[in-house]
């Protein structure tokens, strides 16, 4: 170990149009460590990473790499210095091949032109290193699944021989197997004296992998400590700055409930194969299972986005699968969907908060063909107040809000339609702890009002903490249903892997 940290930030500050993203940050990272960066959304982690990897320039402060002061104006300069970042939003070009993408900016060349054979061989060697030999280097990235794309992104980063590797929520889209591979890879890199910065909201991953943890809050570096030096509770407290009580609101007593949403034998292409489940009035039903088992497609089918769906769906009095979102959201079914990607599916980012809030409720604010500005304003103000959305003015662009507040706008938009059935597609992904808790409380409150909630989450803790019942999907069908005390992590994991109780083996 060298005496000096490999990466050293001193006095780094960054402002964006009035917001202080980073304030006088001192931060250091050593070689041969896996260093976690924790913090809520808006804590400054993203900005920190962007500055280290050359996407942004700091307003003040210095950065030293291996003892030398550096200043990156663009990502390629950082790459040249050995700083490589794997972003949450992938940096792959969908219409180019895997091999092209792995060597995107710096391919092997011959006579000024790209040497495709050398490029392919390079890709094959890197893919082998991350156990992805099954990925065809000549395949277009567009044709790969999300998990494979993330692995290609990792391959691309590895191909640049990093000295400092930054992973920004890089494991969120991966299958279990691939996640294990990444863990092994990080351990290897640590052996090779590479420094890794690991950003994740998944505490179990952080605890498993990282030897050093740093907490950021409100743009400041709060504390850095070794693994084990602080309890989970302490860590959360450091992150949100206040005592945290029970994370999840209490659940009501289990009891028979009138079914509000009934699904029987839902099938679609080869993604849904006879899925059946029921959600009762006032119930929160969790949808679990590994990624990509049909959970997303189930919700899209219920919302009328998919064509050629077979099976029976009954919502309250109405039978039949909705043919479009317009039909789904209208009476009597009144289904709403909070989609997976709020930035591209839930919001119109450049438009104002008010416009986004009203997007599903034009009829409510119209008298005749015209919109009533008075009613508009009052509904918008109500929505903002009800969900405690932190806004400057409702006319500001929704893009200026933090991730958690943006998600609240999406939810508020739908609450304005007074839905009976609420479909939530991983609503707390990438959201800070404080807002997550608000969302859990809101879910329970909505359920208590008699609505039916179907809640897909990739976080076991959420499924266990929020849901009255949990159904696990595997390969397009519902394989297990858990309720009450039976909802625990082992059961969920076992069901996700399709290990039935009759062949139950001890799951470590």
């Amino acid at each position, binding site marked *: 170990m060298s005496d000096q940290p490999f990466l050293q930030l001193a006095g780094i500050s960054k402002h964006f149009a009035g917001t202080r993203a980073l304030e006088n940050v001192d931060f250091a990272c050593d070689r041969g460590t896996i260093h976690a960066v924790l913090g809520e959304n808006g804590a400054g982690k993203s900005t920190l990473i962007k500055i280290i990897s050359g996407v942004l320039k700091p307003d003040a402060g210095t950065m030293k790499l291996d003892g030398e002061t550096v200043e990156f104006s663009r990502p390629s300069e950082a790459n040249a210095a050995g700083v490589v970042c794997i972003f949450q939003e992938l940096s792959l070009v969908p219409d*180019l091949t895997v091999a092209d993408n792995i060597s995107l900016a710096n391919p092997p060349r011959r006579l000024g032109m790209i040497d495709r054979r050398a490029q392919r061989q390079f890709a094959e060697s890197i893919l082998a290193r991350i156990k992805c030999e099954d990925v065809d280097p000549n395949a*277009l990235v567009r044709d790969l699944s999300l998990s494979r794309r993330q692995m290609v992104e990792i391959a691309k980063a590895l191909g640049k021989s990093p000295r400092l590797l930054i992973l920004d929520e890089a494991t969120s889209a991966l299958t279990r197997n691939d996640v294990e591979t990444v863990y092994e890879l990080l351990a290897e890199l640590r052996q090779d004296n590479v420094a890794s910065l690991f950003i994740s909201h998944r505490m179990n991953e952080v605890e498993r992998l990282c030897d050093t943890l740093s907490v950021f809050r409100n743009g400041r570096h709060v504390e850095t400590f070794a693994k084990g030096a602080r309890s989970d509770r302490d860590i959360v407290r450091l992150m949100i700055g206040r005592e945290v009580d029970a994370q999840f609101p209490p659940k009501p007593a289990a009891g028979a409930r009138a079914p509000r949403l009934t699904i029987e034998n839902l099938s679609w292409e080869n993604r849904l194969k006879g899925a059946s489940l029921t959600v009762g009035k006032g119930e929160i039903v969790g949808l679990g299972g590994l990624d990509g088992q049909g959970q997303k497609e189930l919700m899209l089918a219920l919302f009328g986005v998919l064509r050629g769906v077979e099976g029976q769906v009954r919502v309250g009095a109405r039978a039949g699968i909705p043919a479009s979102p317009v039909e789904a959201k209208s009476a009597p079914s009144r289904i709403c969907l909070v989609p997976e990607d709020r930035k591209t599916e839930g919001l119109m980012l450049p438009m104002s908060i008010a416009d986004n809030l009203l997007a599903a409720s034009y009829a409510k604010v119209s008298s005749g063909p015209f919109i009533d500005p008075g009613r508009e304003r009052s509904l918008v103000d109500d929505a903002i107040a009800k969900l405690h959305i932190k806004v400057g003015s409702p006319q500001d662009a929704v893009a200026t809000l933090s991730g958690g507040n943006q998600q609240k706008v999406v939810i508020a938009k739908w609450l304005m339609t007074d839905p009976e059935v609420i479909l939530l597609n991983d609503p707390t992904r990438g959201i800070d702890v404080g807002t997550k808790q608000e969302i859990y409380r809101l879910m329970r409150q909505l359920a208590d009002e008699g609505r039916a909630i179907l809640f897909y989450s990739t976080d076991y803790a959420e499924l266990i903490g929020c849901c009255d019942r949990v159904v696990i999907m595997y390969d397009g069908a519902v394989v297990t249903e858990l309720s009450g005390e039976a909802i625990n992590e082992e059961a969920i994991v076992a069901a996700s892997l399709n290990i039935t109780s009759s062949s139950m083996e001890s799951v470590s």
Partner: protein
Amino acid sequence: MSGLSSAATSIRQNRGLYGALALLVLLYLVYNILHPRGFSSAVLIQNANESVAIVFLAMAQTIPVLLGGLDLSVGAVMTLAACIASVLVNGSPFQIIFGMLVTLAAGTAFGFCNGLIVVYGRLQPIIATLATGAIAMGLALFIRPKPGGDIDGDLNWALTNSLWDFVDTYGLFNPDAAWFAPFSWIPVPLLIVGVIGAGVWIPFRRTVMGRTIYAIGSAEGAAYMSGLPIDRAKIAAFTLAGFFASCGGLYLAIQTASGNADITQAGAYTLNSIAAVVLGGTSLLGGIGGAIGSMIGALILRVMSFYFRILSIDPLLQPLVEGVVLLVAVSLGAFGVLRIKNRLELFR
């Protein structure tokens, strides 16, 4: 990966291109069968002459389209180049060559300016090139207020006929030599398009700059994050478009032995170049396709217009048939959309 399956992958990925090629071959075959003097050298040469300009323009249009943009000035730049050529390309051999070089340089420089405006002015290509196209037309009108001009007679003959005539006109060697016989029938315009078009485009596509252009059209954010030279690639794209447009203009001037600053004609050429690009399998959204496909698309358009001469269609119906065929042609690719089962995929 075995050779056979990688060939299959390649065909699948280039469906648009191979489909267009098949269509072109079919159309041209049927045309020659129906033509009273089909499969003859004279018809081939005439067809080739009339195709060069639009083929070059289609290639020019392809590159900004690959970026996800559009160049509405290509027709005007072609016209400007033709007018410049009609002034300069005559006189002594030195003057002729000089004139040709100036023409090409002018078009390329214009394209370069387009690139500068789009990149450093941060304007959307559609509207920037709409405006610069008007400027190019204005300049063309200054140079040639009325159609006319003078092109070297030998050049005109040599470049609009077969290789035999080219060799004969310039006395390069004995055009009846036996070794030359298999090549002597090749129309020079085809050769010009092939050599310049393919000769410039294919290597360019294989450079990092070429790859950057595709990347920008496919995912500009990702391209930036990956450190690709975005600004330089955009400027290069428009510059190359200007180059190909000026090639088309130069040929047009040589072929017609005059320069004609006709706004309507320039506009029609520009819009046809867009149609050719789409027919050739390049996506208007960017990232997919290539100039070879656009060449084929342009040839398809041209061959379709040739049909009118040989089929006795009421001349009053011709524009209607042209319009319907164009509409159907661009709609063909759309029927894949009807098979999409997840409507979210429609909103790219």
